[in-house]
């Protein structure tokens, strides 16, 4: 009963998201198209972080590094005239996944605070490298002269088409994620989070599973980065700064860790709040801070926990 109510709530949510362009067109407010598109792109990044943070218990403070790597993977080919979206995005996902694989290979040898610090350190290294390379704009960044080209049908320059591409990707990822979590792979990851020594005793090569999850999360975040580069038509190394990782983490927390759909809610809430509140007061973070503390302490399921059936037994 509860899970049916929750499924209905989620479907309603997706309907709303899917209808935003229609509402925007009817009310002559095309800005909402851009706003919600940006929200969905960060939702993809947040969902990818939830995979390792919420389900796997791996607190990566350097997740935003993959946003940056893939954004550059789109912009640098474009700079040299390679506009083909398939080439760019394959490069973006591939490089982010590879970077995550390498970073994970070193970081996952540690755990706890050391893990947090080393993931942060890697992201900072990439950030400082990024701002020192003048050929690619350093911290002035790079422009994307043209959005990724996918042929005449899928024209990302058309804001509606672009919106539905992002929407479609988000839905697809959530479905795939849902399947993954309930498949053997996902179960192993969750079990490793609960009790790694036991899983090892049972015979699982836990390091490999964690690394695979880490690399996968990096690649999916890479997709978000490619989309973000297209959305803003601009990128800077600040996409990789640890405070960006913090932002994405806030979205996951607010939305509900380990819930997969929660981070979408978290992205919506955080970015909407940021847009609304910052118009009223510059001090909005004085509210956000304690709110986060409260959510972590008393509402582990975050916003997702507010949905029917999303409570303690969800």
């Amino acid at each position, binding site marked *: 009963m509860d899970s049916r109510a929750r499924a209905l709530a989620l479907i309603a949510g997706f309907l709303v998201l899917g209808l935003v362009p229609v509402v925007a067109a009817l009310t002559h407010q095309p800005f909402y198209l851009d706003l919600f598109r940006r929200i969905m792109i960060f939702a993809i990044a947040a969902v990818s972080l939830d995979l390792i943070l919420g389900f796997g218990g791996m607190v990566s403070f350097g997740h935003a590094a993959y946003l940056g790597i893939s954004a550059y993977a789109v912009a640098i080919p474009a700079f040299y005239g390679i506009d083909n979206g398939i080439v760019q995005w394959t490069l973006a996902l591939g490089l982010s996944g590879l970077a995550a694989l390498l970073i994970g290979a070193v970081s996952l040898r540690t755990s706890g605070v050391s893990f947090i610090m080393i993931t942060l350190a890697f992201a900072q290294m990439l950030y400082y490298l990024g701002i020192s390379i003048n050929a690619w704009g*350093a*911290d002035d960044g790079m422009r994307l002269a043209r959005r990724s080209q996918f042929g005449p049908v899928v024209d990302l320059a058309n804001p509606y088409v672009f919106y539905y591409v992002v929407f479609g990707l988000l839905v697809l990822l959530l479905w795939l994620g849902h399947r993954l979590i309930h498949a053997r792979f996902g179960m192993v990851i969750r079990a490793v989070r609960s009790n790694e020594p036991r899983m090892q005793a049972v015979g699982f090569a836990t390091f490999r599973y964690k690394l695979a999850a880490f690399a996968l999360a990096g690649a999916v975040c890479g997709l978000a980065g490619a989309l973000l580069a297209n959305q803003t*038509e*601009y990128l800077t190394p600040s996409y990789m700064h640890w405070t960006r990782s913090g932002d994405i983490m806030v979205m996951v927390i607010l939305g509900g860790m380990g819930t997969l759909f929660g981070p979408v809610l978290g992205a919506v809430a955080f970015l*909407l709040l940021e847009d609304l509140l910052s118009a009223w007061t510059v001090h909005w973070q004085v509210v956000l801070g304690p709110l986060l503390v409260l959510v972590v302490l008393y*509402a*582990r*399921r975050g916003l997702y926990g507010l949905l029917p059936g999303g409570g303690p037994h969800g």
Partner: protein
Amino acid sequence: MLESGAWSDNKEGPVRILKGGVVLALVVGLLIGPAGAADPLKIGFITSLSGPAGIIGKHMKDSVELALDHLGRKVGGVETEVIYGDDQRKPDVGKQLADEMLKKHKVNFVSGIIWSNVMLAVAPTVTGAGTIMVGTNAGPHELAGKMCHELYFTTSWQNDQTPEAMGKHMQDQKVTDVYAMAPNDAAGKDMISGFKRYFKGKIVDEVYTKLGQQDYQAEITQLRAANPKAVFVFYPGDMGIQFLKQYAQAGLRDQIPLFSVYTVDETTLPAVGDAALGNFEARYWSPDLKNEASQKYVADFKKKFNYTPSYYGAQSYDGILLIDSAVRAVKGDLSNKKGMVAAMRKAEFKSTRGKFTYNVNHHPIENFYLLKAVKGASEVEMQIQKTIFESHKDSYYQDCPMKW
């Protein structure tokens, strides 16, 4: 493990209703929002209001408000609304703000922007939508050269002009054995290369430091060991405050003269105090510049806000006056973009820098002065010592294809 600490069962119902109400209010608030204002002239002003750079945003916002006061809240004779946006120093947030101002608030002008990288994301968005952009600080060379645009104007400068001026001064003074320092990022490298465009003397060393570095003791020790006759630095914001305090603390203040750009100004002087005394800066404007518009601006600003304005503010003030001259010229017909552009090119308004002339790339041709930090009546202040450049043009205008 995942389930611990969720909302307690008893409170679920009422709390859920409360949260649902909040969400509903948010959605309604978004839809209705401030979009329904009836004012005919809207200016979107984007700057950094939160975070450590918020002090600069404050200077700019306060100056815009003063300009509006001086114009009787009517820019160009038309009732005006200024919509402020906080870019949080992030280009993607800046772009989203620009989109919001263009599409939701339907502004007639977009103005402001402190940072070059935010400008490079925002300016093409604004000009691409056919709206006039009046930048009031950032001066990336792309927008002065190849990417110059009919609808893009700036009231500040091109980033390189300021270090060029300092380079010329030090070259003219036959200063030699210069030790140059800057952060290791695009701006830092641009400043040093701009400096070297006019300074042809001996540079003992070029040292680039980590962006945001707090402790410069190691670099200061190296500097002392290298025995330079002058030091040239670019350290904006909090980096400058730290560097100056540590430079003074190391006893170098009186030993080796310090020349800088964008390092010592009215946003950082209150925090540095005496440690800045004797510092030289190059700038196109200073609060003690002697012309009527500037004196009025500074006096009224101090009276209204109780602190000394900086060049960030003067530029923003000029931006509003520039827009005012344009709207006045077309007699309030905001659809006449060509007319407004033509009027802006003429720049017939009382600028805080005195006579205001535009170059072909919509960047000002202006004087640059040598400033020195001296003890004023009650606090340390910048005072003009001499003019370095008269009617200095930037180094990129020849790449700009515009002709008029």
